[in-house]
């Protein structure tokens, strides 16, 4: 009988302790973020939508059509069309398609890219109305010069060397410059000056360039 009473009192005490702990949380600030109003501060290495960078200094397109990303993609979501330029005898990019509906954002393509052209941006809002519109073509994929500079700084990528000047008109060039700014409003904020370390020693740094460059 007394044991029963004792247990009841103990139980009530424990319930009260729980209630108190829950009630204590009332004065804690909420952890909810008002998402579209304040965007999350994503780290540079965040693996978001794929994009093609241009040279931040010269606004050349960085892709050399080496097809490494196409080959390494586990989902086979990258499709590159290129042809061998008759003048320079080097491959030239014609079309670059990424099916973001298939992409699983593993970032392998960015690791193998010899010129740091294909990068994961911080953009993650890609919802769209059709599956077809998830297939991004070269024009939608290519970043503007400012954005490229932003991501190069944020990801601490080494600056690419400018390509040797070419005699003929470049087919990929027009796409590079004309990127509407409203595509990525949230990526605009000031380029962070603070140094974020990336791959320290011997990270899977972009493996020796020129290897696949025929």
């Amino acid at each position, binding site marked *: 009988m007394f044991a029963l009473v004792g247990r009841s009192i*103990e*139980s009530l005490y*424990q*319930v009260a*302790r*729980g209630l108190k*702990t*829950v009630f204590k*949380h009332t004065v804690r600030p909420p*952890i909810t973020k008002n998402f579209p109003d304040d965007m999350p501060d*994503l*780290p*540079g*290495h*965040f*693996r978001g939508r794929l994009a093609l960078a241009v040279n931040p200094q010269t606004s050349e397109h960085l892709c050399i059509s080496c097809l*490494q990303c196409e*080959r*390494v*993609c*586990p989902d086979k979501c990258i499709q590159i069309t290129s042809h061998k330029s008759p003048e320079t005898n080097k491959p030239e990019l014609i079309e670059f398609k990424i099916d973001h509906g298939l992409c*699983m*954002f*593993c*970032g*392998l393509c960015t*690791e*193998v890219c010899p010129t740091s052209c294909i990068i*994961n941006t911080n953009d993650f809002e890609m919802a769209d109305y059709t599956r077809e519109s998830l297939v991004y073509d070269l024009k939608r994929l290519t970043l503007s010069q400012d954005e490229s500079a932003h991501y190069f700084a944020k990801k*601490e990528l*080494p600056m690419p060397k400018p390509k040797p000047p070419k005699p003929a008109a470049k087919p990929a060039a027009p796409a590079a410059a004309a990127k509407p700014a409203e595509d990525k409003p949230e990526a605009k904020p000031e380029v962070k000056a*603070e*140094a*974020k*370390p*990336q*791959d*320290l*020693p*011997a*990270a*899977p740094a972009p*493996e020796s360039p020129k290897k696949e460059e025929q």
Partner: protein
Amino acid sequence: MSVELSSPDLKTDEMIINMGPQHPATHGVLRLILTLDGEICKHVEPVLGHLHRAQEWQGQNRTWFQYQALIDRVDYLSGMYTSWAMARAAEQIDGLVVPKRAEYLRVILSEMNRITSHLLWLGTYLIDLGAMFGFPFYPFREREKLFDLFEEVAGQRMMFNYIRIGGVLRNPPFGWFDKLKRFTDEFPDRIDEYEAIVTENPIFLKRTKGVGILKKETAMAYGVTGPCIRASGIPLDLRKTKPYSVYPELDFKVQTMDGDGDTWARYMCRIREMRESNEIIRQAIEKIPGGTTEELRKLLGTTGPEKDESKDLDPSFLLMAKKQNAGLRVKAGEGFAAVESPRGTIGCYVISNGSDKAYRFKWRNPSFCNLSVLPELLVGAPIADIMAIFGSIDVILPDVDR
């Protein structure tokens, strides 16, 4: 019709209920075919495979390099461990010695991952028990903090793709270790809060004490691992019993519970493991070769990534023992490697024939093996306990179905 209510001939029927695959508490897509007598369970047949993605087939048809990105999805709540098991298997076959710093980073991130996994279990388990609205958010709050840290170092919150064959992907960014240290400082207080709400709660005790008793012998016969078997009193923890990585250098205890191994013991075991993991992280931060990223930078005298190619580098500061590239190959041979995941022994049996693809992959998933004991536990339990028991063995369905 004249039926005597007290007669044993009173005609009753067994009811067959399909629990799942769309039941809210089957943690995904498990289907249980329950034969009920009233509310008492007479027979259970789990039907698996609703989430079967042919992970083994994919492993055999993708290169090593590609498959590394996929295996986080096998057990998405503890992706580090699946990566680690596969990386260990490949390293064993290849005879690679992973640099110390990389091993420490693996330990730190994996223990973080263990905490996130247990936290998620804690929240959802309380939901299974009916505390739908309040408590489950607290573990998720801490879990979010850890995920933010994961995001900074690995790039994503759950699909890390961080542990690679021969090392890890990259060093954490500046300030990361400080944030983690701050987390480890405040986390024990948070666990105290969880315990204040849950551990001694009379309703919780009633729901869990003496429910779903898993005897030692049964557990061993079914090959149960992880917190489930430790709660039954068997100190099987691969980090201690078959030490790997740098765990021998770290000081921690295997958390076992006395008694029969009921649901409450499994709960308590996980709570204690979280505290223990927290301690491991704290120690590993102290002991990591090269120290924090800032210290490492200072040590190397470099300021930016361009100069990291310095040749006179202490080999233990490296991150990779083997260069990662798309044509990654593993020597021919076979090997079985296991690591202690939050759910138990996660093992990877690999047969390699020296090409860039594995010849045979076989996953030994803890959830799959732990789930096989479920019919044993459920027979004789009322329908309300099904969720209490099923939740307490903490399976994750992608891990079961692969």
